[in-house]
């Protein structure tokens, strides 16, 4: 299936350095996204994005409906939080979240009715400003994992030279198949979102980039596009090689446009905006219905999950409820991961809420997790070969141990995106991503002095 060329689909214009071939394990790629019934309660942290936290706008005892704003702030780099089930607010206060920190949150007990706020209507959009305001109100953050508020990303200046929109459906993380399913199950939403945004923001080039192990996503999108006369052929599909980390923003931009984002710069500095396919699909729906971000799709898989599935759940659902919906554990879980196995976060507890940017829950039994003993670096160079940013992770590690901020910076530690390719490849089992984070901390500490 892979590598078969499809007529009308573009090939990448550049091939980057490094990357690794990791088993895809896309076990759920044929599993249509199913909707999970209303959970008993949802916990909605006031900060599910990069930026300023929201203030709760509801109090204990309030009745809320789906889509009602329950937290907001005036800060620009922020986006409101909406009720994701109908019911009663039972708690407002700090809760622990997946990364171990305590954040302010609103807990809603569901009344099981899933009633949507009556006065939701499609936003009226007459200008770019209207559009950005509407996007901010929708509560949208990057659904691929970064959690950056989308309206901030889209608020580039007219004269900034941004001309290219890339829809990221590469989905290079193993196991996760929701972006793939989104292209198939909600192909109309994806394309409608793409064409609307292209129109409003005036992008010259629009690409939907998908790895070549998802050929049915290409055919589905092409079929839907061909069926609709309003859509011209200005949106191009790009077939990328299935190699990790193809979906990393900088790697993706290079593959699709040949442009390289310099260290410390943003995609907009090379004229590009990258959006996850689920984000664009959500916008497609939101601009028609006005229903804000209250649910999302995710993949639940792994050797310890009884019934792996792709599911759509209200945001704020407890991870434990999600696992129960997928048949619970069929083996004792050794590791539960929020996100993909390469960049996801190992959870210390499953009684934490699902956040907006969480695209997978994976649980693995002990006998299916390869644990490598950490040994000394033998300078084999596999990390250097694997690094998509052309760094020398082993050198950065040495500098980090010496707390040499200058050395860490000169070796390019800040360019590291923590994709994990180096640590994956290391035969000595060295936790290189952790050392990259240490190097960044050393640099930050030094510059704070």
């Amino acid at each position, binding site marked *: 299936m892979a590598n078969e060329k499809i007529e009308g689909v573009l090939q990448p214009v550049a091939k*980057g350095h490094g990357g*690794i071939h*990791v*088993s895809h394990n896309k076990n759920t790629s044929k599993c249509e996204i199913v909707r999970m019934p209303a959970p008993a309660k949802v916990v909605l942290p006031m900060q599910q994005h990069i930026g300023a936290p929201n203030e709760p706008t509801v109090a204990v005892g309030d009745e809320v409906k789906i889509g009602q704003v329950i937290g907001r702030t005036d800060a620009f780099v922020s986006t409101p939080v909406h009720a994701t089930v109908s019911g009663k607010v039972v708690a407002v206060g700090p809760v622990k979240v997946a990364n171990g920190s305590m954040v302010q949150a609103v807990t809603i007990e569901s009344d099981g009715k899933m009633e949507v706020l009556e006065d939701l209507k499609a936003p009226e959009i007459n200008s770019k400003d209207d559009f950005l305001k509407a996007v901010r109100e929708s509560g949208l953050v990057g659904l691929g994992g970064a959690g950056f508020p989308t309206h901030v990303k889209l608020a580039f200046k007219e004269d900034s030279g941004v001309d290219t929109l890339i829809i990221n459906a590469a989905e290079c993380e*193993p196991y996760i198949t929701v972006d793939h399913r989104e292209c198939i199950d909600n192909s109309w939403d994806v394309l409608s979102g793409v064409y609307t945004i292209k129109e409003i923001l005036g992008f010259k080039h629009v690409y939907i980039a998908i790895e070549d192990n998802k050929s049915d996503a290409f055919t589905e999108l092409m079929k839907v596009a061909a069926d609709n006369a309003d859509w011209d052929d200005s949106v191009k599909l790009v077939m990328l090689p299935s190699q990790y980390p193809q979906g990393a923003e*900088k790697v993706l931009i*290079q593959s699709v446009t040949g442009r*390289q984002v*310099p*260290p410390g*710069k943003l995609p907009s500095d090379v004229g590009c905006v990258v959006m996850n396919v689920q984000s664009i699909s959500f916008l497609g729906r939101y601009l028609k219905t006005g229903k804000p971000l209250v649910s999302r799709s995710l993949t639940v898989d792994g050797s310890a999950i009884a019934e792996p599935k792709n599911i759509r759940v209200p945001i704020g659902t407890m991870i*434990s409820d999600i696992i129960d919906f997928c048949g*619970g*554990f069929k083996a*004792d*879980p*050794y*590791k*539960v991961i929020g996100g993909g*196995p*390469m*960049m*996801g*976060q*190992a*959870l*210390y*507890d*499953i009684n934490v809420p699902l956040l907006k940017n969480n695209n997978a829950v994976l649980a*693995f039994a002990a006998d299916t997790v*390869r644990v*490598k*003993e950490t*040994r*000394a*670096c*033998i*300078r*084999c*160079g*596999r990390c*250097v070969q694997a690094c*998509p*940013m*052309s*760094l*020398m992770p*082993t050198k950065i590690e040495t500098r980090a141990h010496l707390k040499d901020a200058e050395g860490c910076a000169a070796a390019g530690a800040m*360019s590291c995106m923590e994709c994990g390719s180096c*640590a*994956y*490849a*290391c*035969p*000595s*089992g060295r*936790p290189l*991503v*952790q050392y990259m*984070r240490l190097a960044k901390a050393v640099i930050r500490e030094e510059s704070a002095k």
Partner: protein
Amino acid sequence: MELNNKLTVSASPHVKSAETTTGIMLDVIIALIPAGIASIFVFGARALAVIAVAVICCVLAEFLSRKAMKREQTIGDLSAVVTGLLLAYNLPSNMPLWEVALGSVIAIVVVKQMFGGIGQNFVNPALLARIVLMSAFPARMSAGAFVGLNNTGWDVDGVTGATPMGLITLADGIKDGAPNLMQMFIGTTSGCLGEVSALALILGGIYLIIRKVINPIIPCAYIGTVAIITLIAFGDVNAMLYEILGGGLMIGAIFMATDYTTSPITNKGKFIYAICAGLLTCLIRLFGSLPEGVSFSIIIMNILTPLIENATKPTIFGTVKEKKNKEADA
């Protein structure tokens, strides 16, 4: 379900490749087996004794030195076995066994462990041990002291013959009595244990390249450089092939120069390193008073490795244009 404190929390990534240090060392050991078998065929049981003593002494030296330094045990990574094999392969079969043991201790204790163990030695342990032994016991390892073909017994003071590398000079070309190219390729000639059979070494090298343990850049650039220079120097294809197949070039280029710790990490660095090693080998072989120059060339290049590596750092993603812009500005 109460799972508190049962879940494992660790930094990403949560999947790892199947490759391990031990697995890599095991691949090198497998790749060295054909050359070992060839040496036993050519030199008899005495070769086996040298190999056994070197391997056992290296592992023992590693075990004891780690113990003495109160550090975690590392013999499980099998690197000491590799060092033992390589040392044995770089010695003649008539080497007294206590000298073999001494070489093992020098390789492991002095060159490897005193500098911090695996990954920290600045030169190849087996090669430096060989050079120490060569200097300490010159008679054993001089050009004419190698056991000849007809002496496969235990009598180490028996008939000795010249290594093939003593039978070619720039002035005279290949001398009378030198083995023919087929003998050199198969390995039915005299020399150090592991270096005699080019065929066995190439088989091992192909295995390592297929298993992606070594990058073909170093052996190809090293042997290629020697081939080009000797072809120009002798003006004779036979002499060139004789130089490539003879002496320690094959084992050096495939197994010694490719040592991870002492060769540059980057591909560009590997290329420069290998070409320089080839140049040095030719200089010593053609113009020096030693018949063989592979060991010294590799050791010298080992020492230059940090410099080469520094000069060949990969360009960090996204910085190419900046540099070009700066040049344009200037």
